[in-house]
C-alpha cells in the first residue's frame, strides 16, 4: 500500500513536470531543461519568504507562482528567443537550456548556499488514513496539486483564446501564423504558464523533499522520459507514462535495489522504444 502511495505521488510529480515541459516543447521545440532551475529558484525563494520574512503560506504560494511565471518568460526572452531566429541545428536548443540550468544553479548556490530546507505548508504535519495506511499530507497534496493543475491546464488550453493559440501553434506553426495567431505573445504565454506550473511543482515537491539548488535536476530527466514515451500531444499519454515510470522506479527501488534508482526510468525508456518506437501514444518522437 505504501508502494502504491509512493508511486502515485511520484507519478503526480512527473506528470506535473511533464505537462510543463510539453507545453514549452510544443511551441518552440526545445527541451526546456531550465524548468528544473525555475523550480529550484522558486522553492528556495519560498523557503526564504517563510523563514526570513515569515509570510503566510497563501502569500508565499501566490508569489511563488508569479515568480515562476516571470522567470520562465525571462528565460524565453533572453536565452531561447535569440537562438530561435536563426537556424543553428538541432543541437542549439538543448545546449542553451542546459546553459540556463547551469546559470540558475550557480546563481542559486551563490545566493542561498547549499543547505537544504523543506518548504513548510499548512498540511505538513497532517496525516490521512487511506485504506489502512497513514499517508502524509504532503503526499496527498502532491497528488492534489497535480490533478488540479492538469485540469486547469486543460481548461486553459481549450477554453481560452490564448490557450487555443498555444495549441494551434504547437500543431502547425505555419497554419497558425496564417490564421493570425500572435506568435510572440503566444510563446510568452506558454512560458508563463509553464512557469506557473514550475511554481506549483516547487511548492509541492519542496514540501516533500528539501529545497536546494539542484533539487530538480534528476527528476527533470525522468520527466523527459515521460514526455518521450507518453507522446507530446496527449494528456492521457502523459498520465499513463508518468504512472508507468513512477511504478517502475518505486518497484525497482523496493525489490531490486535502491542503489540503482536513477536508471529504472531509462530502462523503461529503452523497453518502450524497442516495442513501440513511436512512444505509447504520440507519433512525434521518431525521426522523419
Amino acid at each position, binding site marked *: 500500500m505504501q508502494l502504491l502511495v509512493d508511486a502515485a505521488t511520484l507519478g503526480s510529480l512527473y506528470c506535473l513536470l511533464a505537462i510543463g515541459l510539453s507545453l514549452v516543447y510544443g511551441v518552440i521545440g526545445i527541451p526546456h531543461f531550465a524548468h528544473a532551475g525555475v523550480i529550484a529558484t522558486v522553492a528556495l525563494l519560498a523557503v526564504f519568504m517563510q523563514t526570513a520574512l515569515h509570510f503566510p503560506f497563501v502569500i508565499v504560494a501566490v508569489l511563488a507562482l508569479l515568480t515562476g511565471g516571470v522567470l520562465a518568460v525571462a528565460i524565453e526572452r533572453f536565452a531561447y528567443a535569440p537562438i530561435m531566429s536563426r537556424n543553428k541545428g*538541432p543541437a542549439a536548443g*538543448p545546449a542553451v537550456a542546459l*546553459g540556463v540550468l547551469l546559470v540558475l544553479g550557480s546563481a542559486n548556490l551563490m545566493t542561498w548556499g547549499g543547505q537544504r530546507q523543506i518548504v513548510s505548508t499548512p498540511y505538513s504535519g497532517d496525516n490521512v488514513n487511506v485504506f489502512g495506511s497513514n499517508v502524509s499530507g504532503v503526499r496527498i497534496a502532491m497528488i492534489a496539486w497535480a490533478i488540479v493543475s492538469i485540469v486547469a491546464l486543460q481548461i486553459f488550453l481549450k477554453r481560452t483564446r490564448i490557450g487555443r493559440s498555444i495549441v494551434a501553434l504547437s500543431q502547425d506553426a505555419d497554419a497558425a501564423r496564417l490564421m493570425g495567431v500572435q506568435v510572440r505573445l503566444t510563446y510568452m504565454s506558454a512560458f508563463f504558464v509553464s512557469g506557473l506550473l514550475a511554481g506549483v511543482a516547487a511548492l509541492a515537491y519542496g514540501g516533500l523533499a528539501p529545497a536546494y539548488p539542484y533539487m530538480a535536476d*534528476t527528476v527533470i530527466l525522468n520527466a523527459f522520459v515521460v514526455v518521450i514515451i507518453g507522446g507530446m500531444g496527449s494528456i492521457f499519454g502523459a498520465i499513463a507514462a508518468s504512472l508507468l515510470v513512477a511504478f517502475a522506479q518505486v518497484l525497482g527501488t523496493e525489490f531490486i535495489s535502491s*542503489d540503482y534508482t536513477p536508471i529504472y526510468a531509462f530502462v523503461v525508456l529503452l523497453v518502450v522504444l524497442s516495442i513501440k518506437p513511436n512512444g505509447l501514444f504520440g507519433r512525434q518522437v521518431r*525521426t522523419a
Partner: protein
Amino acid sequence: MTMSRYVVGTLVIAIVGGAYVLFVASPYLQAVTAVILIYTVAVSGLNLLAGYGGYPNLGQATFMGVAAYFSAWATNNIDWGFWPLLLVAPLIAAGVALVVALPLLRLKGQYFAIATLLLGVVLTTILANAKNLGGSVGIGGFDRPGTGSVQWLTVLIVITALVTLGCARVVTLPVGRHLLAIRRDESLSESIGIPVYRRKLQAFVLGGLIGGVAGVLLSYNSYFISPDLFSFYESFLLFVALIVGGSGTVSGPLLGSAFMVGLPELFRFAAEGRYLTMGLVFIIVMAIAPDGIAGLGQRLAASMSPLLPNSRGRPEPAPATPTPMKTGV
C-alpha cells in the same frame, strides 16, 4: 582548406606550441596544457556527430568514462599498461556506443539529446555502485609511460595532433559532406540518396571511440578517476567547449577546450561564480556567435563562399545562415 594544409597547420602548431610548452613553460602551465589537450581529443570526437552532423550528442563524457574505468579495471586486475589500453579501451567504448546507438538514433534530435544525457546518469549510477572499482570514491593505479612530464606531454601532443588530423581526414571523405547535409536538413538529405542512419551511426561510434581515447588519457593524466568526472554535467561542458570553439571546424575543439579549461583558471577566485560566468558566456555565444571562435576567425578571414566539401577538395562547412524554409529535425 585541403588536407595538406591541415597537416601543415597542425604540424606547425604542434611543433612550435609543443616546443614552448615542453621547454619554456612552467610546470603549472604544462599541467593546464595537458588537460586542454585531453579535452581537445574528447571534443574532436564529439565534433563528428554533434558538430558536423548537428546532432546534439550530450553523452560524450560517458564514453570517456567507459574507457577510463575499463583501464582502471585492467591496470588493477590484469596488469595492463598504458599502450595496450590505449588500443583496447577505446574499442570497448566504441562497442558501447554501437549498442547504445541502435535504439537512440531512432529518436528525433531533441529527444536524442535527452537520451544521451540519461546515458550519463546510467553510467554514473552503475559506477558509483561498483564497489570493486572504487564506488563513488574513485580508483587509481595508473602508471604513466615514460619518465617525467616532458615525455608524457609529448605523448599527449602527438596523440592530439593525430586525432585532429584523423578527424580532418574523415571530414574530407563523403561521410563528411553527408554529415553537413544532414545537419542542414535530414529529410532532404535522405531524399537525395544520403544514407542518413548509417552516417549518424558511424559518426556516433567513431566519436565514442575517440572519446574513449580521451578517457584513457585522462586516467593516466590524473592518476585517479571517480564517477563524477564522467557525469552528464561533464558531457554538457564538453558540448559547451565544442560550441564556443566552433562546431564543425577543425580548429574548434582546440580553441573551445582552451577556453573551457583556461577560463575557470582565470576565475579561480570565485568558485561557484565561474560556472555562472561560463553559463552566461555560453548563452551569449550561442545568441551572437553560433560559429564559435573558429567561426569568428573564418568570418574575419572574409573569403567565404558556400562550400561543397567533396570533389573540389574543400572540406569546410558554410556557416548556417538564416532561412525561412523548413529545415529538418
